[in-house]
């Protein structure tokens, strides 16, 4: 049985919007406009994607998959780039990184027969990989910037002792990767106990047997784990060098970093 929510039922979702709206009005949060706008925008976006996906799923895999995956990577690149605007070459590095992560994960899925090369499987699964990688890259960039600022003295100390920028940044890279991995480690530890992951919930609601749903969830959770690690490592290792000039001196202001290239 495929469950379906009727359009009339859907209309009652308005009630769920009235709650935050009332709160905003009552406590004068000034968020009413944002609440309405984000709800409308979110709804339209989802329907548009719904129709687009229906269309793409009907296309031959070799056309539908590249189109949608490219769109996802481009949007994700521009989104993640926001966190590293002041760094030179931020967007090409993120772009290449996302492509590399997507290709490696996808190839593994296909080679091991975990996922079939069908738009209806590859597109949603890739979306999760690219989305999580995008967040991981953005967080890694932000974290790296703040670690560089926070550890300014230690970096100077390391350089002053004769360390190469790579050696001096070791601590920063370590901490950035640590910060990127810990939420995923924690999530994996409690997966299924605290909350059922979204994908699994969706499959179960869609009528798939729980054990089957878990298999898919495992594939996606572990793939996300590895792609998030890869993403964070990729941007960190590609970007740390922009905090130094060719004379192995630490650049301390945003202007210096921006004008480095």
């Amino acid at each position, binding site marked *: 049985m495929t469950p379906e929510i009727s359009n009339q039922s859907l209309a009652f979702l308005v009630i769920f919007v009235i709650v935050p709206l009332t709160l905003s009005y009552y406590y004068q949060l000034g968020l009413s406009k944002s609440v309405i706008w984000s709800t409308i925008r979110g709804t339209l976006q989802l329907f548009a994607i719904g129709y687009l996906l229906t269309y793409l799923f009907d296309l031959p895999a070799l056309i539908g998959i590249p189109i949608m995956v490219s769109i996802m990577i481009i949007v994700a690149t521009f989104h993640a780039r926001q966190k590293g605007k002041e760094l030179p070459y931020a967007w090409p590095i993120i772009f290449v990184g996302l492509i590399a992560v997507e290709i490696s994960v996808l190839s593994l899925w296909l080679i091991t027969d975990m996922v079939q090369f069908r738009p209806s499987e590859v597109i949603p699964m890739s979306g999760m990989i690219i989305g999580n990688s995008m967040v991981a890259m953005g967080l890694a960039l932000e974290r790296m910037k703040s670690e560089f600022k926070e550890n300014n*003295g*230690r970096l*100077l*100390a*390391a*350089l*002053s*002792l*004769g*360390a*190469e920028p790579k*050696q001096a940044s070791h*601590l920063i890279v370590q901490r950035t990767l640590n910060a990127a991995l810990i939420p995923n480690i924690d999530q994996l530890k409690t997966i299924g106990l605290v909350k059922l992951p979204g994908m699994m919930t969706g499959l179960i609601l869609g009528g798939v047997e729980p054990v089957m749903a878990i298999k898919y969830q495992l594939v996606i959770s572990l793939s996300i784990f590895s792609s998030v690690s890869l993403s964070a490592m990729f941007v960190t290792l590609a970007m740390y060098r922009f905090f130094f000039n060719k*004379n*192995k*001196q*630490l650049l301390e202001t945003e202007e210096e970093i921006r004008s480095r290239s």
Partner: protein
Amino acid sequence: MFRFENVSQEPLKDLTFTIEKNEKVILFGPSGAGKSTLLYLFNRLHDPETGRIEYKGKSIREHSVTNLRKNVGLVLQAPNLFPGTVLDNLKYGPSLFDEWDESQAKTLLEYVQLPTSYLDRDVNQLSGGEKQRVSLARTLANSPEVLLLDEPTSALDYRTAEEIEEVLEQLIDEQQLTMVMVTHDMNQAKRLGDRGLFIMDGNLQEDGRIPEMLENPKTKLLADFLHD
């Protein structure tokens, strides 16, 4: 050892002076005069906007950056120790050049008068004075020829500062180091230095022997500074 020729780097304007081997130079002047900036130039953590700096008769740009930094050791104002143990910090510099020898550890701690039992101690457990000693030992581990000190005792209480000073005095004599130290403490300057460079408004205002220049300043600027 060092020669500065018309060097400028915000806020320093136009500095020319030479430092000979084994000199113990005190850099002093009001806050913001550019004293720390000057130390960073010696160690090439910064490069001057204009002018030329020579080390051992050769422009510092012609030396390998990492070797220069190893030979011209800098002790920063804050200890800035690396996370880990005291030993991790001591071996950091020499390990970069594959020169670490375990037997060094004991000697280094002796230099800064810390017991050997401290080697395995986590740096978070150290007091302010102990951290500064480790920071000094970490720089000495590289066997530098020149020791640059950026107000090494400014964050410490009077007694701890005096202890560090004693350590420094002994070290510099024993190791035949050339020293350039920034300090605000004129008594410390008298105890540790033999030459003073007084920097104010970005310029070298007076260059003389210590303690003579502190007792009989030639310029009104220095007299006023010492009076304040």
